[in-house]
Every structure is written in C-alpha cells, then in structure tokens.
C-alpha cells in the first residue's frame, strides 16, 4: 500500500472552501424540498409528488458524493479521477464514489423527468426498475471504460433526450396556455447538472467560468426551493 501524500495547500484555500459552501447550499435546498413535501405526499399519496421528492433526495446524495470526489481531486492535485490509481486506498474510494455519484445523479434526472411525465406514460411499476437498471448500466460503463468522455457523451445524450421529452410534454400541456415556466426551469436544472458533471470530471475545463456555473446552479435550486417553501408554507 502506498504512503498517503502530505495535505496540499490547495485543500485549505478559498477554492475548496467555495466547493464545500456550494455543495452545502445545494444539499440543504434539496433536503428541505424533500422533507418539506413529506406531509403533502403522506396525505395525498400522489405519485407525482413522490417522484419529485425522490429526485431531490437523489440530488442531495449525488452532491454529497460530488464533494468527496472534489476532495480526492484536490488531495491528489489531479485533473482526472481516473488518473488516481485504484490500487491506492483513496483511488479505490474515488472509483466507488464516482460510481455512486453517477448512479444517483442519473436517478435524480430520471425521477424528475418521470414526476412530470408519469401521467402520460404507461402507469407501469416496471418503469422505476427500468430507471434503476439504466442508471446502473450508465455507472458501470463509465467506471469500466475509465474514460470521462464516455460518461460525458452519455450525459449529453441524456440531456437532449430530456429536452425532447420535456418539449413534447410542454407542447401537449394545458400549462402552456397559462404561461407556466417550470419546464424551462427543469431543463436549465439539467443543463447545469451536465455542466457540473463536466466540472467534476474535467475541473480545468471550466476554470474561468466555474463560479458563474456554481452561482447559476445555486440560483436554480434556490428558485425551486423558494417555490416549494411558498407553496407548502415552509412547514
């Protein structure tokens, strides 16, 4: 077993602090959304609320593991998680964490999509199992290929797929006439989620606009959080 390297200076500078604050804000918003809607679901047993809540629970879990990946990247002063050998204990933890991160982030996207689409799709319980299988396949391919471009490619494909499905739903929706903009917020949420994945896998890629991406992501989560709190009466 290799000796662990000394803690680098990057770990204690503002950059890593910003990462922690950013993750904390998103995790907090997601958990408040999840727990704040608990009573509405318990009373109504409405499936749309159930999938919506679970999507944000998965976002919270994914962001928690994202923070751990960021820690490993800073700790080993590397740009890619795959550069850290899985034979080193931290490298192995990194690979497992990446698997969990990809799995839960994919599930968050699937559940958010399903929360707005479940009434239009075949009301088959197997859809949920299909999401788990798909998320597992995406995670496994990403880890086994040890190629970040494969995972990024899968997510870009997922984004276009989501935009296609959401635009179909929007065009057939009665809400279109009412001027609702939640579909746009959902697409923006997914877009910034993909940018976050780029940021996790290739930290140098968005070096100059990282803060803008973080602020925009926080803004979207806070917007949804605000709407949830307003509607549920912040219980």
């Amino acid at each position: 077993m290799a000796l662990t390297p000394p803690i680098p200076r990057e770990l204690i500078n503002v950059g890593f602090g910003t990462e922690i604050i950013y993750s904390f804000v998103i995790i907090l918003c997601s958990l408040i959304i999840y727990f704040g809607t608990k009573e509405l679901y318990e009373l109504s047993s409405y499936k749309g609320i159930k999938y919506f809540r679970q999507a944000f629970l998965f976002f919270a879990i994914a962001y928690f593991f994202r923070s751990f990946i960021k820690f490993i990247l800073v700790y080993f002063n590397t740009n890619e998680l795959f550069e850290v050998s899985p034979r080193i204990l931290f490298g192995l933890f990194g690979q497992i964490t990446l698997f969990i991160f990809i799995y839960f982030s994919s599930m968050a996207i699937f559940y958010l999509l399903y929360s707005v689409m479940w009434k239009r799709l075949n009301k088959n319980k197997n859809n949920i199992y299909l999401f788990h299988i798909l998320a597992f396949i995406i995670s496994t391919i990403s880890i086994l290929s040890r190629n970040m471009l494969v995972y990024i490619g899968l997510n870009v494909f997922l984004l276009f797929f989501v935009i296609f499905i959401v635009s179909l739903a929007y065009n057939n929706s009665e809400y279109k006439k009412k001027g609702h903009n939640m579909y746009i917020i959902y697409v923006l949420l997914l877009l910034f989620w993909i940018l976050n994945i780029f940021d996790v896998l290739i930290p140098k890629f968005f070096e100059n606009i990282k803060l803008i991406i973080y602020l925009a992501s926080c803004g979207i989560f806070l917007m949804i959080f605000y709407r949830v709190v307003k509607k549920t009466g912040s219980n």
Partner: protein
Amino acid sequence: MVKRGKIDIIKDILIVIRDNNNHIKSTPLLRKSNLSSERFSTYLQDLLNKNFVKDSHDQKGERFLSLTDKGFRFIEKYKTIIEFIDEFEL
C-alpha cells in the same frame, strides 16, 4: 362537467362527513358522494385504510363514519396539495 380526480373525490367525501357534524351513516354518504356503489366502496375502504375516516357504532348500535385528525388535516391541506401539483406540473 370536469372529471374529478382521486384527490378531489377524497376531499368531497371528507367534506360531506365534516359538514354532517362529523357523524354520518354510509348510505347517505354514498348518496351525497355522487359515486357508484362499487367506486364508493373502494374509496371508503381506502379512506379507512389510510386512517382518514374511522368506523364507529353509536348508542343504538348503528354504524357511522367520522373523520380522524388526519382526515381534518387532509381537508385543511387540500388546496395546498392541488396548488403544489399545479405549480410543479406533476
């Protein structure tokens, strides 16, 4: 006439019970709920299972239905639930 959803039907049944001094027999409840007897039985069983409604007997030994605290809470939160579903297009 707009078709009622499951949540609307539950709310309507609970409101009928509440507006009847929280004490009603199942036959007048069936009549006031505007449902077929088969659907009414399904909904009533669902409400009993979810503990929105409780089944009791009065001094004459006759069966009647009344709301539980959870049933009152549902009526209180009904508008919030509907607005939430509408807001997030769920």
